[in-house]
Protein backbone atom coordinates (compact mmCIF):
# COMPACT_ATOMS: atom_id res chain seq x y z
CA UNK A 1 0.00 0.00 0.00
CA UNK A 2 1.13 3.51 0.62
CA UNK A 3 3.75 2.68 3.19
CA UNK A 4 7.09 4.24 2.51
CA UNK A 5 10.31 2.75 3.69
CA UNK A 6 12.30 5.88 4.27
CA UNK A 7 12.25 7.75 7.53
CA UNK A 8 14.07 10.83 6.38
CA UNK A 9 10.92 12.10 4.71
CA UNK A 10 9.29 12.56 8.10
CA UNK A 11 8.00 16.06 7.71
CA UNK A 12 7.02 16.65 11.27
CA UNK A 13 10.30 17.65 12.81
CA UNK A 14 11.87 21.03 13.26
CA UNK A 15 9.16 23.30 14.50
CA UNK A 16 10.38 26.67 13.33
CA UNK A 17 10.23 29.16 16.13
CA UNK A 18 12.69 31.56 14.60
CA UNK A 19 11.55 34.82 13.15
CA UNK A 20 8.79 33.99 10.76
CA UNK A 21 9.09 34.94 7.14
CA UNK A 22 5.48 35.97 7.15
CA UNK A 23 6.11 38.77 9.59
CA UNK A 24 6.97 39.11 13.23
CA UNK A 25 5.68 36.46 15.54
CA UNK A 26 2.99 37.44 17.97
CA UNK A 27 4.15 37.66 21.55
CA UNK A 28 2.09 34.66 22.47
CA UNK A 29 0.22 32.28 20.26
CA UNK A 30 -1.50 28.93 20.28
CA UNK A 31 0.06 25.88 18.71
CA UNK A 32 -2.77 24.05 16.93
CA UNK A 33 -3.10 20.30 17.46
CA UNK A 34 -2.19 18.69 14.15
CA UNK A 35 -2.57 15.29 12.49
CA UNK A 36 -0.24 14.49 9.59
CA UNK A 37 -0.50 11.44 7.40
CA UNK A 38 0.96 10.35 4.12
CA UNK A 39 -0.55 8.37 1.27
CA UNK A 40 1.10 7.19 -1.91
CA UNK A 41 0.27 10.47 -3.63
CA UNK A 42 0.21 13.16 -1.01
CA UNK A 43 0.87 14.41 2.46
CA UNK A 44 -2.21 15.55 4.38
CA UNK A 45 -2.09 17.89 7.34
CA UNK A 46 -5.12 18.52 9.57
CA UNK A 47 -5.00 21.32 12.12
CA UNK A 48 -7.63 22.41 14.65
CA UNK A 49 -8.26 26.12 14.35
CA UNK A 50 -11.53 26.77 16.17
CA UNK A 51 -12.80 30.31 15.75
CA UNK A 52 -10.86 31.02 12.58
CA UNK A 53 -12.51 32.23 9.37
CA UNK A 54 -10.85 31.73 5.97
CA UNK A 55 -9.84 35.38 5.65
CA UNK A 56 -7.96 35.17 8.93
CA UNK A 57 -5.81 32.32 7.69
CA UNK A 58 -2.37 32.54 6.13
CA UNK A 59 -0.62 29.41 4.85
CA UNK A 60 2.76 29.80 3.15
CA UNK A 61 5.50 27.54 1.89
CA UNK A 62 8.92 29.06 1.52
CA UNK A 63 12.24 27.22 1.40
CA UNK A 64 10.33 24.03 2.22
CA UNK A 65 9.01 25.49 5.43
CA UNK A 66 5.27 25.28 5.70
CA UNK A 67 3.99 28.01 7.96
CA UNK A 68 0.45 28.40 9.13
CA UNK A 69 -0.75 31.47 10.91
CA UNK A 70 -4.28 32.36 11.81
CA UNK A 71 -5.84 35.37 13.42
CA UNK A 72 -9.35 35.28 14.84
CA UNK A 73 -11.85 37.85 13.67
CA UNK A 74 -11.69 41.03 15.71
CA UNK A 75 -12.41 39.89 19.24
CA UNK A 76 -15.86 40.89 20.34
CA UNK A 77 -16.45 42.30 23.74
CA UNK A 78 -17.24 39.59 26.28
CA UNK A 79 -20.99 39.06 26.00
CA UNK A 80 -21.44 39.25 29.75
CA UNK A 81 -19.96 38.58 33.13
CA UNK A 82 -17.52 35.66 32.79
CA UNK A 83 -18.37 32.67 35.00
CA UNK A 84 -15.96 30.12 33.57
CA UNK A 85 -13.04 30.68 31.19
CA UNK A 86 -11.30 27.65 29.74
CA UNK A 87 -10.24 28.90 26.35
CA UNK A 88 -9.32 32.20 24.80
CA UNK A 89 -9.25 33.54 21.28
CA UNK A 90 -5.79 34.26 20.01
CA UNK A 91 -3.39 33.85 17.15
CA UNK A 92 -2.32 30.43 16.01
CA UNK A 93 1.13 29.72 14.69
CA UNK A 94 2.97 26.57 13.68
CA UNK A 95 5.64 25.73 11.13
CA UNK A 96 6.89 22.49 9.68
CA UNK A 97 9.99 21.57 7.77
CA UNK A 98 8.97 19.71 4.61
CA UNK A 99 11.05 17.29 2.63
CA UNK A 100 12.10 18.77 -0.67
CA UNK A 101 9.93 17.01 -3.17
CA UNK A 102 6.46 18.39 -3.03
CA UNK A 103 4.56 20.09 -5.79
CA UNK A 104 4.32 23.29 -3.83
CA UNK A 105 2.41 24.98 -6.62
CA UNK A 106 -0.38 22.45 -6.25
CA UNK A 107 -0.89 22.66 -2.50
CA UNK A 108 -4.54 22.82 -1.56
CA UNK A 109 -5.89 24.22 1.69
CA UNK A 110 -9.46 24.21 2.94
CA UNK A 111 -11.09 25.25 6.18
CA UNK A 112 -14.23 23.57 7.41
CA UNK A 113 -15.81 23.60 10.88
CA UNK A 114 -12.62 25.09 12.28
CA UNK A 115 -10.34 22.39 10.85
CA UNK A 116 -7.71 23.29 8.29
CA UNK A 117 -6.85 20.60 5.75
CA UNK A 118 -3.68 21.03 3.70
CA UNK A 119 -2.95 18.59 0.89
CA UNK A 120 0.57 18.53 -0.50
CA UNK A 121 0.89 16.42 -3.64
CA UNK A 122 4.12 14.46 -3.96
CA UNK A 123 6.29 14.93 -6.95
CA UNK A 124 6.59 11.97 -9.30
CA UNK A 125 10.02 11.17 -7.95
CA UNK A 126 8.67 10.62 -4.43
CA UNK A 127 5.78 8.37 -5.32
CA UNK A 128 6.38 4.74 -4.58
CA UNK A 129 6.98 2.72 -7.70
CA UNK A 130 6.04 -0.87 -7.73
CA UNK A 131 8.84 -3.10 -8.94
CA UNK A 132 7.67 -6.24 -10.57
CA UNK A 133 9.59 -9.22 -9.39
CA UNK A 134 10.16 -11.81 -12.04
CA UNK A 135 10.29 -15.35 -10.90
CA UNK A 136 12.77 -17.24 -12.98
Amino acid sequence: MAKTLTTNTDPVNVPVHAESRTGELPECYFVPATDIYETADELVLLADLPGIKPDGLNVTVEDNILTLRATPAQAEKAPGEPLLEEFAAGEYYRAFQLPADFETAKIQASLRHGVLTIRLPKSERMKPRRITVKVE
Partner: protein
Amino acid sequence: MAMKGWVPAARPFGELQREMNRLFDQVFGKHFAAVGRLRAGYVYPPMNVWETDDHYIVACEAAGLAMEDLEVYVTGDQLTVTGRRASQVPETGVTLHRRERDSGHFSRAVTLPGPVDSAKTEATLSDGVLTVRIPKAPEAKPKRVAVQLETDGPDGEKKGD
Protein backbone atom coordinates in the same frame (compact mmCIF):
# COMPACT_ATOMS: atom_id res chain seq x y z
CA MET B 1 -14.93 37.56 38.58
CA ALA B 2 -14.88 34.07 37.19
CA MET B 3 -16.70 31.25 38.97
CA LYS B 4 -18.10 33.47 41.69
CA GLY B 5 -19.72 31.15 44.18
CA TRP B 6 -20.16 28.52 41.56
CA VAL B 7 -18.28 25.35 40.79
CA PRO B 8 -19.49 23.24 37.86
CA ALA B 9 -20.58 19.80 38.98
CA ALA B 10 -18.16 18.11 36.60
CA ARG B 11 -15.09 19.74 38.14
CA PRO B 12 -14.99 19.19 41.87
CA PHE B 13 -11.35 20.25 41.99
CA GLY B 14 -11.82 23.33 39.88
CA GLU B 15 -9.82 25.59 42.13
CA LEU B 16 -6.77 23.37 42.34
CA GLN B 17 -6.94 22.64 38.65
CA ARG B 18 -7.07 26.27 37.71
CA GLU B 19 -4.14 27.02 39.94
CA MET B 20 -2.17 24.20 38.32
CA ASN B 21 -3.02 25.54 34.88
CA ARG B 22 -2.00 29.01 35.90
CA LEU B 23 1.38 27.74 37.06
CA PHE B 24 1.73 25.67 33.92
CA ASP B 25 0.96 28.64 31.71
CA GLN B 26 3.36 30.80 33.69
CA VAL B 27 6.20 28.32 33.17
CA PHE B 28 5.57 27.28 29.59
CA GLY B 29 3.87 30.32 28.18
CA LYS B 30 0.39 30.82 26.91
CA HIS B 31 1.10 29.37 23.51
CA PHE B 32 1.45 25.98 25.10
CA ALA B 33 -2.06 26.03 26.42
CA ALA B 34 -3.54 24.63 23.23
CA VAL B 35 -1.88 21.31 23.91
CA GLY B 36 -4.71 20.71 26.30
CA ARG B 37 -3.81 17.21 27.33
CA LEU B 38 -0.69 18.44 29.07
CA ARG B 39 -2.68 20.66 31.35
CA ALA B 40 -4.32 19.49 34.52
CA GLY B 41 -7.84 18.11 34.36
CA TYR B 42 -8.22 18.27 30.63
CA VAL B 43 -11.88 18.12 29.74
CA TYR B 44 -13.47 18.22 26.34
CA PRO B 45 -14.87 20.42 25.07
CA PRO B 46 -13.30 23.45 26.75
CA MET B 47 -16.03 25.88 27.73
CA ASN B 48 -16.48 29.54 28.43
CA VAL B 49 -19.60 30.64 30.30
CA TRP B 50 -20.90 34.19 30.56
CA GLU B 51 -23.88 35.64 32.33
CA THR B 52 -25.95 38.58 31.17
CA ASP B 53 -29.11 40.02 32.67
CA ASP B 54 -31.25 37.72 30.52
CA HIS B 55 -29.09 34.77 29.44
CA TYR B 56 -26.35 32.36 30.20
CA ILE B 57 -24.07 32.07 27.19
CA VAL B 58 -21.90 28.98 26.82
CA ALA B 59 -19.20 28.69 24.14
CA CYS B 60 -17.42 25.40 23.43
CA GLU B 61 -14.40 24.82 21.25
CA ALA B 62 -15.58 22.05 18.96
CA ALA B 63 -13.37 22.04 15.88
CA GLY B 64 -14.28 19.44 13.29
CA LEU B 65 -17.77 18.84 14.62
CA ALA B 66 -20.87 19.31 12.50
CA MET B 67 -24.28 19.92 14.06
CA GLU B 68 -25.22 16.28 13.44
CA ASP B 69 -22.24 15.18 15.55
CA LEU B 70 -23.49 17.18 18.51
CA GLU B 71 -26.34 16.89 21.00
CA VAL B 72 -27.16 19.66 23.39
CA TYR B 73 -29.54 19.10 26.31
CA VAL B 74 -30.85 21.32 29.04
CA THR B 75 -32.16 19.35 32.01
CA GLY B 76 -33.36 21.48 34.88
CA ASP B 77 -30.55 23.98 35.26
CA GLN B 78 -27.92 21.65 33.80
CA LEU B 79 -26.50 21.94 30.31
CA THR B 80 -25.09 18.79 28.69
CA VAL B 81 -23.07 18.70 25.47
CA THR B 82 -22.42 15.24 24.06
CA GLY B 83 -21.19 14.01 20.74
CA ARG B 84 -18.67 12.11 18.79
CA ARG B 85 -15.62 13.49 17.10
CA ALA B 86 -14.67 11.26 14.20
CA SER B 87 -11.04 10.80 13.33
CA GLN B 88 -10.34 12.30 9.94
CA VAL B 89 -7.29 10.12 9.45
CA PRO B 90 -7.96 7.02 7.31
CA GLU B 91 -7.67 3.81 9.30
CA THR B 92 -5.58 1.93 6.80
CA GLY B 93 -3.26 2.57 3.92
CA VAL B 94 -1.55 5.63 5.28
CA THR B 95 1.67 6.40 7.09
CA LEU B 96 0.90 8.38 10.19
CA HIS B 97 3.36 11.10 11.14
CA ARG B 98 1.49 12.99 13.84
CA ARG B 99 -1.69 12.37 15.74
CA GLU B 100 -2.45 15.12 18.19
CA ARG B 101 -6.13 15.68 17.54
CA ASP B 102 -8.36 13.65 19.82
CA SER B 103 -11.30 11.67 18.57
CA GLY B 104 -14.07 9.67 20.16
CA HIS B 105 -17.18 10.17 22.28
CA PHE B 106 -17.44 12.97 24.76
CA SER B 107 -19.99 14.23 27.20
CA ARG B 108 -19.79 17.21 29.43
CA ALA B 109 -22.29 18.77 31.80
CA VAL B 110 -22.26 22.05 33.65
CA THR B 111 -24.74 23.21 36.22
CA LEU B 112 -25.81 26.77 35.64
CA PRO B 113 -26.00 29.05 38.65
CA GLY B 114 -29.73 29.73 38.38
CA PRO B 115 -33.02 28.51 36.90
CA VAL B 116 -33.32 28.67 33.11
CA ASP B 117 -36.03 28.60 30.47
CA SER B 118 -34.87 25.52 28.56
CA ALA B 119 -37.54 25.73 25.84
CA LYS B 120 -36.01 28.89 24.38
CA THR B 121 -32.41 27.67 24.29
CA GLU B 122 -30.59 28.39 21.03
CA ALA B 123 -27.46 26.62 19.83
CA THR B 124 -25.34 27.75 16.88
CA LEU B 125 -22.18 26.34 15.38
CA SER B 126 -19.73 28.60 13.62
CA ASP B 127 -16.10 27.97 12.59
CA GLY B 128 -15.72 25.13 15.07
CA VAL B 129 -17.19 27.00 18.02
CA LEU B 130 -20.53 25.95 19.51
CA THR B 131 -22.46 28.74 21.19
CA VAL B 132 -25.49 27.99 23.38
CA ARG B 133 -27.72 30.81 24.60
CA ILE B 134 -29.96 29.79 27.47
CA PRO B 135 -32.51 32.33 28.66
CA LYS B 136 -32.84 32.72 32.38
CA ALA B 137 -36.17 31.75 33.90
CA PRO B 138 -38.31 34.87 34.36
CA GLU B 139 -38.05 34.67 38.13
CA ALA B 140 -34.26 34.70 37.90
CA LYS B 141 -34.01 37.88 35.84
CA PRO B 142 -33.27 41.06 37.68
CA LYS B 143 -36.43 43.06 38.15
CA ARG B 144 -36.52 46.75 37.93
CA VAL B 145 -38.29 48.32 40.81
CA ALA B 146 -39.70 51.74 40.20
CA VAL B 147 -38.47 54.11 42.83
CA GLN B 148 -40.82 56.86 43.78
CA LEU B 149 -39.64 60.02 45.34
CA GLU B 150 -41.44 60.89 48.47
CA THR B 151 -42.58 64.44 48.49
CA ASP B 152 -44.43 66.43 51.02
CA GLY B 153 -46.49 68.46 48.62
CA PRO B 154 -48.05 68.07 45.20
CA ASP B 155 -45.32 70.19 43.58
CA GLY B 156 -42.50 68.39 45.28
CA GLU B 157 -41.67 71.44 47.36
CA LYS B 158 -41.40 71.27 51.04
CA LYS B 159 -43.93 73.32 52.91
CA GLY B 160 -43.71 75.15 56.11
CA ASP B 161 -40.47 77.01 55.73
